């Protein structure tokens, strides 16, 4: 395991590599420990609460970033998921890993994904060249936006060394409205009407038979919006208890249980269409107002890949196999195959960024 402690050393390591490099941050997101760790590149380099910006080395523990922000009552608004419980991994999630996987949580529906909060990157490409793109300001259209491209590239285009974010203030108050026993279609209709209201819903999910809608902001405003939403949503809704969102963010109902886990993105009203008559036994959690579907299926054969991916392709969207045993993994790709022209572009980009094909080879296709 190589563990460089500076960007320069990271660049030298990549340049000198003779074979595949399996890159890891904290190793918590289900890609193994790898043979190149960026955890040695650690530390917050700049934090300006008055400018809502934070710059950190890629190996900085996520917990450290969140603690530093919390001390100024700010946060990473996209609410990155912690994969450890779901995947049964141990270790310390890093901020670079969050970016590499474009990891976002329930608040994605309102404030955008990790890629939307990311404003700058530095990375080492497959030849060991240090590249920067974006910067530390919120608005920047200077040249192509490789920042977005690096978010969710899972280290296949370059090894991240530094990442910059736009952060947001923590709200004064939070409340969740809950309703039990709605079927999927009714739950999604309710979530859609809440998300389509002027009341700035910051999360909407259905989990364990309960539909939940979150509101955040100044205390009086939260109270007001709760009231208006209760009026809008009708009978059966009430104000729930606190602490209902970690469970959604981290998909806790599927943690520690047998089965493969899919993460599917479709437009919200397609959720029930996708899950109805799948023909395989499954359990489902809806987040993002129904647009994000977590499916627990039997960890057997192709784990439903053929039917799930065909339906998702037909509806428009993508299905990622987040958790599965070796047997399923051996026959099912992690990511939804892309249509030919896009696959050709993606492959072309990989060749340009990593001509030797040594960065996490084959991980994305």
């Amino acid at each position, binding site marked *: 395991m190589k563990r460089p402690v500076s960007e320069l050393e990271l660049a030298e390591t990549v340049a000198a590599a003779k074979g595949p490099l399996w890159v890891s941050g904290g190793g918590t997101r289900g890609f193994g420990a790898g043979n190149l760790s960026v955890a040695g590149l650690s530390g917050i380099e700049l934090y300006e609460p008055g400018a809502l910006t934070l710059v950190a080395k890629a190996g900085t523990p996520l917990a450290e970033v969140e603690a530093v922000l919390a001390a100024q009552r700010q946060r990473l608004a996209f609410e990155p998921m912690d994969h450890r419980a779901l995947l049964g991994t141990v270790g310390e999630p890093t901020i670079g890993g969050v970016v590499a996987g474009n990891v976002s949580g329930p608040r994605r529906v309102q404030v955008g994904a990790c890629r939307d909060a990311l404003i700058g990157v530095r990375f080492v490409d497959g030849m060991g060249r240090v590249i920067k793109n974006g910067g530390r300001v919120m608005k920047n259209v200077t040249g192509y*936006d490789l*920042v977005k491209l690096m978010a969710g*590239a899972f280290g296949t285009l370059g090894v991240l060394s530094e990442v910059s974010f736009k952060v947001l*203030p923590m709200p004064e108050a939070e409340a969740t409205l809950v309703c039990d026993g709605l079927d999927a279609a009714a739950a999604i209709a309710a979530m859609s009407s809440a998300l389509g*209201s*002027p009341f700035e819903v910051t999360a909407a999910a259905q989990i364990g038979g309960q539909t939940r809608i979150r509101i955040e902001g100044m205390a009086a405003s939260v109270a007001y919006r709760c009231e208006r939403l209760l009026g809008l949503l009708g009978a059966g809704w009430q104000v729930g208890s606190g602490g209902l969102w970690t469970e959604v963010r981290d998909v806790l109902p599927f943690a520690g249980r047998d089965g493969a886990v899919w993460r599917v993105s479709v437009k919200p009203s397609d959720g029930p269409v996708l899950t109805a008559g799948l023909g395989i036994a499954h359990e489902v959690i809806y987040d993002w107002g129904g647009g994000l579907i977590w499916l627990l299926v039997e960890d057997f054969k192709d784990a439903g890949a053929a039917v799930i991916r065909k339906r998702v392709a037909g509806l428009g969207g993508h*299905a990622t196999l987040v958790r599965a045993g070796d047997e399923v993994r051996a026959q099912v790709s992690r990511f939804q195959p892309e249509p030919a022209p896009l696959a050709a572009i993606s492959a072309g980009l990989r060749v340009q960024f990593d001509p030797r094909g040594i960065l996490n080879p084959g991980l994305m296709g």
Partner: protein
Amino acid sequence: MQMPEPSARVLSQKTQIVTRLREILPEEAVIHGEFETRAYECDALTAYKCPPLAVVLPSSTAEVSAVLKLCHEMGVPVVPRGSGTSLAGGALPTADCVVLGVARLNDVLETDYDNRFIRVQSGRTNLSVTGAVEEEGFFYAPDPSSQLACAIAGNIAMNSGGAHCLKYGVTTNNLLGVTLVLMDGTVTQIGGAYLDSGGLDLLGLICGSEGQLGVVTEATLRILRKPEGARPVLIGFDSNEVAGACVSDIIKAGVLPVAIEFMDRPCIRATEAFAKAGYPDCEALLIVEVEGSEAEIADQLAVITKIARRHNPVELRESGSEEESAKIWLGRKSAFGAMGQINDYMCLDGTIPVTALPLVLRRISELSTQYGLDVANVFHAGDGNMHPLILFDANKAGDLELCEAMGADILKLCVQVGGCLTGEHGVGVEKRDLMFDQFSAQDLEVQLKVKDVFDPAWLLNPAKVFPLVATAARRLEAAE
């Protein structure tokens, strides 16, 4: 500013090119007369003009594909065009190019309020996207000041922003999918009505690529429900530093306004003379707008005015009605028009860390003295996106060059303090030659390689964004 020599090969083939374009498009969709092409000789950066070889106005994705395929086969450069409001010369033609205008592609294809998106053809104007969903109480958030005229196509190509992007983000944060036609005519779908990409984020790459990677013909956009109400407060200060500190404190306090706009004294005076909005005659003025119900607005404004009072404002005017709100915004909205009355001006677009505001404003005023050109500042202070307007006289020999030199110095200053050359207008031809001030040769080379993947022949808008020296070899190969 320099543009490459037009390709002699392409110029000599004009007749064949026009004949073949007319085989695939209706007659009136191909414009090639010396006089008619003049209407397309520039965009809103009017200092530079060049009539193209021909202009085509296709009416469908299939026609766009056919045009690109033909131009690809014949080796003809193509400059995509939306409404031509670019301030960076992004849509500036070259003499050997075909301008591909998407103005006729302006239909709404689908509106879906449950799933909160709209799908439109890309030539549709920004404001008419909101116009299509307004009756149901929805809107499309990015709102460039040019929204009455500019097209979604140009917004996507430039990743345009607007006054309200502090809260709602810029184009890229509100774009869900596109139909993109590649230079060889291949039609691709990237993204859709769902969130995020299952593979590499190609959508994020396309947005802001200034018409160099493909031609966007359709777009799926996120729409939002309109807030219950909105109200601004106007705060005047007797120093730029104090106004800058107040911006920082408002942000730190945890209220997130939809907009924080900043104007300095030269700008206040010019707009007062022009629009008579009743602004105080002070050194710096902030307009801070918040949204919500009446009570929510009052609460947020209370927090903001409390912070402002700590900074001893010379004026603090909270809007109490629609009419007063309109009056507060009037001056800001007519700022560019007002400056245009006084003089020719060049509008810069650099972004800086908000904390560097006082320093940068001071340096700009020093440069103003040094160059002998007046500068007025009006900008989006919440996100550090500056718009210094340098006043000059286009009829005075050497004034434009002087103004450009001063503009370059200001933009370099933005980069030095940790910012960038352009926050929302794009690089185009205007800032092309400053790119080495922000990027290393290696940083730029990777971007050129991205273009190699989408447009290996280097035919799409090839003389933009990157310094000509950096792209010379690739462009020359294409021109032969």
